[in-house]
């Protein structure tokens, strides 16, 4: 019942919009059909939440004439999504919401023949820093104590994270290398499962994104020890960064919108304006703050340059993971 009513209102609204030529980009390119909003992860994960949040902001404020339709393609650690973009038939109506498998998957699965530099940069919505967490019951309160403990346990210290070659394993491999730690690493499907097993003390430490650990941090179960960001994080002002400890390393999850390779310049401009609007909306600004994402605005050229450095960094980091 409610559907028909909604559809009716929607159709009426659309008809009115079509009749009145007062849209933001009246003369420019406009999407002609629903926009395929490909997500590099399965439903429910961090990337999925962000994509659906963005969609909801655009929807709520009527920012697009055609809807963004979320399309989860998490298979093969995002390989499925990258191929969907590379082989997109309708290049002007296909977008991707990324995380760092945007860099790692093409590097690890060379057979895919995906070169991310061919993709069209649209918008950098923010970057998600990583934080080192332990359970409050462990009694560990500082990073130095963590290092000491991990060394003392000599290979029996258990850390959990996402699958091999993915973000968590990269951060942990760097940490282990920098401090000469032998850790036991247990790979999980996603950040939620990792947080759950830290809460249940099945594992001893994690490098979850703040959003994934937030509930348990607020309840006092998780203790943050170290941030892998460039500067101290606003939401955790007392947590030191790895840079302060003398290691030139920071690591973020890229939350970006990317267009299909070969997207027309007009379409790309339309989406850049659209996502700039989303970015500036009070909803998104509130989300950045509540989920502890860091803003990192950059234009198309800067994004490409950023991708170059990231690809180079990831190539080196993945070698460490494979050890």
């Amino acid at each position, binding site marked *: *019942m*409610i*559907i028909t009513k*909604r559809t009716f209102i929607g159709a009426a609204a659309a008809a009115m919009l079509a009749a009145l030529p007062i849209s933001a980009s009246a003369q420019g390119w406009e999407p002609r059909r629903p926009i395929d909003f490909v997500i590099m992860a*399965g*439903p*429910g*994960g961090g990337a*999925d*939440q962000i994509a*659906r*949040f963005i*969609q*909801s902001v655009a*929807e*709520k404020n009527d920012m697009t004439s055609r809807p963004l339709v*979320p*399309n989860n*393609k*998490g*298979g*093969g*650690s995002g*390989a*499925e999504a990258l*191929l969907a973009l590379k082989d997109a038939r309708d290049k002007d109506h296909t977008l991707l919401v990324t995380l760092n498998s945007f860099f790692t998957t093409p590097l*690890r*699965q060379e*057979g895919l023949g995906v070169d991310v530099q061919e993709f069209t940069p649209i918008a950098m919505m923010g970057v998600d820093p990583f934080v080192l967490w332990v359970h409050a019951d462990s009694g560990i309160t500082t990073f130095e104590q963590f290092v000491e403990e991990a060394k003392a346990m000599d290979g029996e210290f*258990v850390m959990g994270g*996402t*699958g*091999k*070659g*993915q973000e968590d*394993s990269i951060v942990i491999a760097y940490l282990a290398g920098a401090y000469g730690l032998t850790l*036991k*690493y*247990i*790979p*999980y*499907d996603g950040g*939620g*499962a990792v*947080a*759950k*097993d830290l*809460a*249940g003390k*099945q594992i001893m430490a994690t490098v979850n994104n703040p959003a994934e650990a*937030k*509930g*348990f941090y*607020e*309840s006092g*179960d998780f203790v943050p020890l170290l941030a892998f960001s460039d500067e101290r994080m606003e939401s955790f002002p007392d947590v030191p960064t790895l840079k302060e400890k003398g290691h030139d390393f920071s690591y973020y999850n890229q939350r970006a919108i990317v267009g299909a390779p070969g997207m027309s310049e007009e379409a790309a401009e339309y989406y850049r304006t659209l996502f700039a609007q989303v970015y500036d909306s009070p909803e998104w600004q*509130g989300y950045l703050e*509540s*989920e502890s994402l860091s803003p990192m605005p950059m234009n198309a050229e800067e994004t490409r340059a950023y991708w170059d450095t990231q690809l180079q960094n990831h190539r080196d980091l993945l070698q460490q993971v494979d050890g």
Partner: protein
Amino acid sequence: MEILSLLAGGVLTALEPLNLMLIIAGVSVGLFIGAMPGLGSVNGVAILLPITFLVPPGSAIIFLAAIYYGAMYGGAISSVTLGIPGASTAVATTFDGRPLALQGRASLALVTAALASFVGGSVANILFTLFAPVLATLALSFGPPEIFALMLLAFATFVGLGGDDIPKTVFSICLGLVLASVGFDTISGEPRLVLFDIPGFLRGIGFIVLAIGVYGIGEMLWTIEQTRGEVTTTNPRMTARGMMNDTREAVQRGWKGTTIGSFLGFFVGILPAAGATPGSLMSYGVAKMVSRRPELFGRGNPDGVAAPEAANNSASTGAMLPMLTLGIPGSPTTAILLGGMVIWGLVPGPRLFVDQPDFVWGLIGSFYISNFAAVLINLAFIPLFVWMLRMPFTILAPMIFVLSIVGGYAASRSIHDLWLIVIFGISAFFLRKFDYPLAPAVLAIVLGPIAEPTLRQSLLLSSGDPSIFFTRPISAPIMVFAIVLILLPAVKLFRRRKTETAAAE
């Protein structure tokens, strides 16, 4: 008694006009989405998430939870009437629901499903209300070894599922496990078994694809071959008196399955990573295992409909528990709900019960109301569904085919999956001709992706020492029980062979 007053407040919130309207709308939409093959609660909740911005968060989640509930009821409808599982959670319902329909007892099957769902939902609601915080702690004490032990137990209950031919059952399980391992291996971070380098296999083989192929297409081919197209379906009578009788029979012959499903389903549901589909399959296995006459299962036993249906409703409420108390989804659908809560500005996690009591208790209250609304709406529609079965098979068969294809496509929007459905359907038909049970393969493709990583995580934890399964307080008894169950039929088989040879001599 604090809980009771909180609950009463919650129920009152749920009964506010807007919320009540949303519950009825949500349950109806859910019923339809659940009944549509391929589309399940995940799709329904994901598609309708954006329209919830029109109402306050408390009402929004009530609406989505009502869809979730309705879909659990609706899944049974096409499982019974068409033999195609309406949703992944309703696969086990086809095992006995379809045979009942073919015997002209579709209304009995549907009434049983509705009542079992209602009881399952009610039991889960009560457990949820009383023990949420305790159960959340219990869920956390299940690490990888415990979950693996539980999965092994599920396999063990299914060894006896397939017409008692154990080697063929084991073959079927292995087939399912191989299909389950196609795709991407998270632990090593490498693609695995990407058959013929077709990119579609990167995602792995969806469970719903196999289920639609086997039960939609395969079943259709089987019926055509068995009857040469001359099925006159059973002429189901549908009177008020008939429904009363069905209700009585459903209670008499389905109470055992309902009880098992209600409790087991809830328990499996609260474990993150599991969810309603494994819960309903396991309940079916257990109901069959403890039954005094297991041979009746698979041939139209109301207990076999009641167990999975009670379990999927119970598990769906159960899956809300880790979502609300820990911020960790217990099933794919709750994962989307969780995303919704973030969008509405709520922080799911251990503090939610304390910080947002109105929201939490309003939602819990709505579970009770949704459950009532769903059973009433469902019972009211049963005559309509049964009437559909009067169509001649020559019309029904193409309809099943179309629904299978549309449903298979709708779930993933990929043509690749449609080819798989057809291939699975044809293979299932031939396997069935050679008397291979197929339910174990379906079970394996559901549980395989949970069992395999937890086995490997456990062994990583113990540096390869399998004793980890036997030294932990929770996993040890489950493990021992599972192994006994697996060995039991093997011993029986061995004994029978022995007596047979003895008799032959």
